[in-house]
């Protein structure tokens, strides 16, 4: 419907939510048979041949001698990570969506992270650029490398991707220990939330990302994992994409107990006549999530899971 189609909705407008982007799985070159290769890729969680390749399969230089001092980070997840491991002062460029922490806001905004503006990035004279590993960014990665800038392309969609990205970034900036500490602390919080919600009944949840067309969260996204940890069950956990398009009729059939939405999305759902077809809407179970906290697979996932657990099971985290 046109009326809701153009409402500006900023949070979550980030690479990992764009469907149609296929992970670039590079298999171990040592394995000659394609079939074996697929099995190997599925079995081992690091998707590349070694710990030290990025998600376009390019080698990642180890820190120390050539430790980068001017970093442009073109996705919120890596910007948050850099600030968390104390490399914030080295960040000289970010996207309009990278608003955490407060110090990050003072970094120059170089525009969007998908098909980035190469000139704007180069104007910051970076010696390392971090970008989201998707087909749309391949040309940008090549152009930046041709200009002599180190590039690390990372596809951060799931919890495991975050851990891997933290390891690689820690290695690249020469501070693996602090990167490991940050990952440990996220994992520790997640484990705490998981144990608190373990025995509780699990409400079924529809995660509303966008409504024209209707886009939700499915198994390919870290948000699905956070939901599970927080004691909920995603009604679209059977779909493998990160953020598939679905029909309202199908949402009604799957009959979620709860709907999670950003503030604007929740307001539109509550005001809509068609969304009243969903039981959770009629019964007033539309819960507002802080999309600026929960939108990015990064260092605040522990906090995000805590907030989600609290929304789904009030009082459980006290």
């Amino acid at each position, binding site marked *: 419907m046109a*009326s809701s189609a153009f409402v500006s909705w900023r949070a979550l407008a980030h690479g990992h939510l764009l469907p149609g982007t296929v992970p670039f799985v590079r298999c171990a070159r040592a394995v000659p048979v394609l079939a074996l290769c697929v099995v190997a890729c599925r079995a081992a969680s690091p998707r590349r041949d070694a710990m030290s390749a990025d998600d376009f399969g390019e080698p990642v230089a180890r820190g120390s001698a050539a430790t980068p001092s001017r970093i442009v980070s073109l996705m919120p997840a890596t910007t948050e990570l850099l600030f968390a491991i104390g490399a914030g002062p080295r960040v000289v460029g970010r996207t309009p969506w990278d608003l955490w922490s407060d110090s990050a806001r003072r970094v120059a905004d170089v525009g969007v992270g998908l098909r980035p503006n190469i000139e704007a990035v180069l104007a910051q004279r970076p010696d390392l650029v971090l970008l989201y590993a998707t087909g749309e960014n391949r040309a940008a990665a090549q152009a930046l490398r041709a200009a002599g800038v180190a590039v690390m392309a990372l596809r951060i969609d799931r919890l495991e991707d975050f851990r891997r990205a933290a390891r690689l970034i820690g290695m690249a900036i020469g501070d693996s220990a602090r990167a490991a500490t940050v990952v440990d602390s996220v994992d520790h919080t997640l484990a705490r939330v998981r144990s608190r919600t373990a025995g509780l009944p699990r409400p079924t949840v529809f995660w509303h990302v966008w409504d024209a067309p209707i886009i939700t969260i499915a198994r390919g996204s870290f948000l699905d994992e956070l939901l599970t940890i927080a004691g909920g069950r995603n009604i679209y956990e059977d779909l493998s994409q990160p953020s598939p398009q679905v029909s309202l009729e199908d949402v009604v059939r799957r009959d979620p107990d709860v709907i999670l939405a950003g503030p604007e999305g929740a307001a539109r759902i509550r005001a809509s006549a068609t969304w009243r077809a969903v039981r959770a809407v009629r019964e007033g179970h539309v819960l507002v999530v802080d999309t600026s906290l929960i939108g990015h697979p990064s260092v605040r996932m522990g906090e995000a899971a805590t907030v989600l657990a609290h929304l789904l099971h009030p009082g459980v985290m006290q």
Partner: protein
Amino acid sequence: MKRASFWVLAVAILAVLMILGVSWGTVSLTPRAVLAALAGRGDRNAIEIVRALRLPRVALAALVGAGLGVSGAALQGSLRNALAEPYLLGVSGGAAVGAVIGVALGFSSAVALPLFAFAGAAAAIATAILIARAAGGRADPRVLLMAGVIIGAFANAAIMVVLSGAPANTMRSALWWMMGSAAGADWPQVAWLAGYTVLAGGALLWFARDIDILALGEESATALGVDAERAGRRVFLVSSLLAAATVAAAGLVGFVGLVVPHLVRAAGIRRHRALLPGAALAGAALVVLADLVARVAHPPAELPLGAVTALVGVPFFLVQLRRLS
């Protein structure tokens, strides 16, 4: 085909498709469950699916189809151009620009949006006709069509400029809307579109004799005492309003206005007093069918409605083009 049998067949096909449209969807319900839901009995979710989602959606699709069919028939007649239709003439594109501007200015109601769309549509069709005239007259149907294509391209560019700074998801919604969709239909929207369709369709029916005479050519019209210029302008304006109302309700749904009048004429119906209602029925049937395909082809996702109609319409357009040349 006998004319009487056309009417019986058209009404029957539309009725069957509307029943299918209410019975089928992403969620499969037994006929018994659908009947129970219509009566307000049985499972609450089934009731909601049938009464709150499918019924308004089928009604909206039927109205969009009827509006586009009538608009296409009136434009083809008055322009004496077998390839005229709102989408190809750039009218729908102009309407989309108008609607986007309306939304950007903060208007989003089912009442106001068609008016913005109408302003855009009227500007588009006026420009198309001016270009065609400057390029050597409306007599050659291909010139007008080319003008329409140019306007459509310009409209697309204008929308892209407006949206260039928008976040990825807004952009995606805009593109989705421009491909046409009846998803998200609700009763107030259906009521407003019905109002616009009845008003504009009624007006065109009122002008039916003028359209018949315009279809004979400007000279004959003058000889028969009709001010061809004025009559033509009235028909363009009202047809544009009708097309614009459908664009505001369901985005760009192309080729319906092209295909439908030809189908009705093939049944031997030539006079516009009968052709227009015939095009309304056939258009409604076509779009209800296209929306059904859009819903059930690839569940739980939906296809854009305009993509489905274009898949049917483009081959048809090529056949017509061949026949013309």
